[in-house]
């Protein structure tokens, strides 16, 4: 049984939405890292991560975003987070991650936060 999935959608305005679902922990973080890397190698720099269906995150999951944030910001991109459940947001908040990542209440807000290319 697959406990985690991450699917990439290409959207207008050069935005890649990554839809997460399930449990993102030290077991599944490598799956997300591969998917991020594929999208990054494919040229995506404007990420929106959709947390709507993510039920759990541990520090291994947060580490994946740390791997890519510097590279995408250096090229005028970003990783914007959206629609976190409170228990998932708490983990980001406990470690002060909202300082580094923009966290939006909805995917639409996160998408609209990107200027036109």
């Amino acid at each position, binding site marked *: 049984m697959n*406990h985690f999935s991450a699917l990439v959608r290409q959207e207008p305005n050069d935005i890649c939405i990554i839809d997460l679902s399930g*449990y993102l*922990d*030290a*077991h599944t973080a490598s799956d997300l890292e591969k998917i991020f890397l594929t999208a990054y190698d494919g040229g995506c720099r404007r990420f929106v991560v959709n947390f709507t269906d993510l039920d*759990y995150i*541990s*520090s*291994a999951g*947060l*580490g994946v975003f*740390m*791997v890519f*944030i*510097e590279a995408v910001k250096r090229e005028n991109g970003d990783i914007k987070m959206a629609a976190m459940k409170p*228990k998932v947001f*708490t*983990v980001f908040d*406990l*470690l*002060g991650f909202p*300082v*580094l990542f923009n966290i939006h209440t909805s995917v639409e807000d996160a998408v609209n936060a990107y200027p036109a290319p």
Partner: protein
Amino acid sequence: MIAFSNHTEYITISASTDSLRTIREFISSQIEDCGFTEFEENGIVLAVDEACANLIAHAFAHDASQSIEILVAVDDRDVRIEISDTARPFDPGTIEHPNMDDYFRERRVGGLGISLMRRVMDDVVYKPATQGQPRNTLVLTKRLAG
């Protein structure tokens, strides 16, 4: 309403990240209805996940033939979780607690599990193996409010 009961349970799991979900479900089932808030319950589950993920990666180098024993003891004052192993001693307390401003400035990756454990638990105590006690034990304690 709190349906409280003193109890002690344990499981033995293989040192593989594949076990993390089983660990979380075990901890969750042991601490529910003990009087912790949902926020506290989530934090306790997270702390145990982080502790075991560290052990699996750093102490056992993902050797799934090795095992970790987890004991949960609940009474009317607190929950105590003892995570024990026979790996080379690895005291998470020796890992420097990162200053998060520096952490973000330097874009470091990893090493956050210990910080999370300390933030959500009341006590994090490491007891390395001795001649009389051949297992390393990490003891995580969370006290019940009031």
